[in-house]
């Protein structure tokens, strides 16, 4: 037994210095900032809401009951009912699936595509870079809400088209950010060294540049989730997002607007849900930025 343990002794992990990286370090930093923790809790809460919607909801979100229309909040209908008697609480619970998945989908799509284009553009440089960046400038020159609306309208009113439109419009922001990072990383010793070892351009982009360009992109993405949810809600509000009877927060606020003077709960609760979610992602994004920014370390 003793001989066994001696033989299988690992290469003493305890003498290795604690790396200032990894998940453990990340959570250690998160814990030191109460606002980030608050953001994280809101996000986890929202995600749980998404996952467990069928169990959390008290009613069928689409069940119409004209006997009970526009009821104020009560023990039976926690957040009241809407103009066709649907339970607003249940609709908000199910609506989280639409709203939050819009946020995650848009950020994932535009972030990945934007990062790839941006890093490639920055590494290749020259004419390719100029063409790509001018195209992005053209897209950025149009106000993003107007461009999104135009795209969503052109694609046709549906939630998926709205997500696509928002994603396309967000791409240039990531391209610019990633390119700026790539320009700096391109001059680093390890990229030069990789070239002397015969690495191809694609290898340099995928292996060296993207990895090292990641921190600011992650921050941008986290901050964008909140903004995207708002944007999707805005599109839903003007009728370009989710269509009836799908529950979606923006669309609910929009319809509730007609009753806002007498039935405040109709717009009020979905609006609150949007507010809380966007705040949660923004707080968390700010926190991550502080953690990933080396200039802030030790503060």
């Amino acid at each position, binding site marked *: 037994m003793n001989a066994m343990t001696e033989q299988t002794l690992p290469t003493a992990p305890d003498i290795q210095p604690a790396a200032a990286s990894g998940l453990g370090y990340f959570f250690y930093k998160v814990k030191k900032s109460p606002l980030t923790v608050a953001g994280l809790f809101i996000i986890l809460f929202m995600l749980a809401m998404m996952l467990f919607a069928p169990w959390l909801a008290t009613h069928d979100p689409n069940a119409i009951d004209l006997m009970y229309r526009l009821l104020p909040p009560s023990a039976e209908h926690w957040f009241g009912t809407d103009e066709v008697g649907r339970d607003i609480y249940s609709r908000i619970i199910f609506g989280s699936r639409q709203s939050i998945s819009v946020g995650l989908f848009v950020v994932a799509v535009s972030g990945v595509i934007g990062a790839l284009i941006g890093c490639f553009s920055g590494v290749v440089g020259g004419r390719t870079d100029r063409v790509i960046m001018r195209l992005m400038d053209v897209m950025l020159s149009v106000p993003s809400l107007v461009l999104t609306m135009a795209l969503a309208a052109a694609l046709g009113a549906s939630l998926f088209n709205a997500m696509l439109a928002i994603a396309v419009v967000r791409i240039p922001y990531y391209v610019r950010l990633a390119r700026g990072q790539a320009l700096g990383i391109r001059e680093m010793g390890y990229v*030069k060294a990789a070239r002397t070892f015969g690495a191809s351009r694609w290898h340099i982009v995928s292996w060296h540049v993207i990895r090292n360009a990641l921190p600011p992109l992650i921050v941008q993405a986290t901050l964008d989730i909140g903004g995207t949810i708002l944007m999707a809600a805005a599109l839903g509000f003007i009728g370009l997002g989710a269509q009836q009877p799908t529950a979606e927060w923006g669309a609910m606020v929009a319809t509730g607007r007609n009753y806002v003077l007498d039935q405040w709960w109709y717009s009020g609760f979905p609006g609150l849900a949007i507010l809380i979610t966007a705040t949660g992602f923004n707080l968390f994004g700010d926190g991550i930025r502080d953690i990933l920014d080396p200039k802030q370390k030790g503060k």
Partner: protein
Amino acid sequence: MTQNPVLSINDLSIEFPVYKGAVKALNGVSLHVNEGEIVGVVGESGSGKSVTSMMAMKLLPEGSYRVTQGDISILGTDIIHASEKTMRTLRGGDVAMIFQEPMTALNPTRKIGIQMTDVIRLHRRLDNDAARQLAISLLKDMHIADPESTLQRYPFELSGGMRQRVLIALAFSCNPRLIIADEPTTALDVTVQKQVLMLLKAKARELKTAILFITHDMAVVSQFCDRVYVMYAGSLVEAGSTRQVLHAPRHPYTRGLMAALPELATPGSQLQAIPGNVPDLSRLPAGCAFASRCPSRSDKCNQKPVLTSIHEATTHQVACWHPALQEELAV
């Protein structure tokens, strides 16, 4: 002497176009490195040593330079007209390079092991395990204690000397025929410097790898190189075996360099310096570039001297109208 040159550069001139004119970085440089030979290139900053090494690997940014004459060949491949694809198979395969900044030459976000196996697998058909084994044995050759755990570490966990040894191990990973070492020890302190150089030399001798060694450190050259070229303002001014050049320098510039070595100065006395400055490479004089700083200049120096053997039966060459005589030598 000219059996099997691994690298040969013939009469190479390169200029960098700038506003109204061009910076003439290299002016008719000819040098060759034979199989298994360690050749030094010495000179001060801006003398063209790094441009020479970058050009040999064709690493200067495309379009930033102009080759006005001459050619480079590595193992028979014409570098100047080679495609990027040809260069990619050459780089890291037959020719490897070691840089002067070991601090930044490794990707900070990847473990050493992944970076090493990645390079190995880029050029060799090996599976992950075999590449790992090779990496371990390469690190062992570089006297890195506990190579297995080193592979699990990130670059920031290693010291400068260790990182440079990792990079040297990487350079040797594909059994190159030539290694271009651009001031590989400048960023290290002297004790580590010597250790790293000895490891590099031992491994090169073992594998019969040739090394083109770029440096400004005469002391390093004297211990390390078989032959040496001295560069000044983009031209070669003296060439020969290390012994010939360092013990019997003929060119006034080489002599100036030797006299300026702090190691040779009498303690307490002022350090010697070569008066004047390196000429502006975009406005080089028609004649000898060193003339304005030279103690033995004459009217003849308005013509450009050519690198010629000092007498018939020697490889010692000098580009000077007034080479110092053997008897005058102080060093």
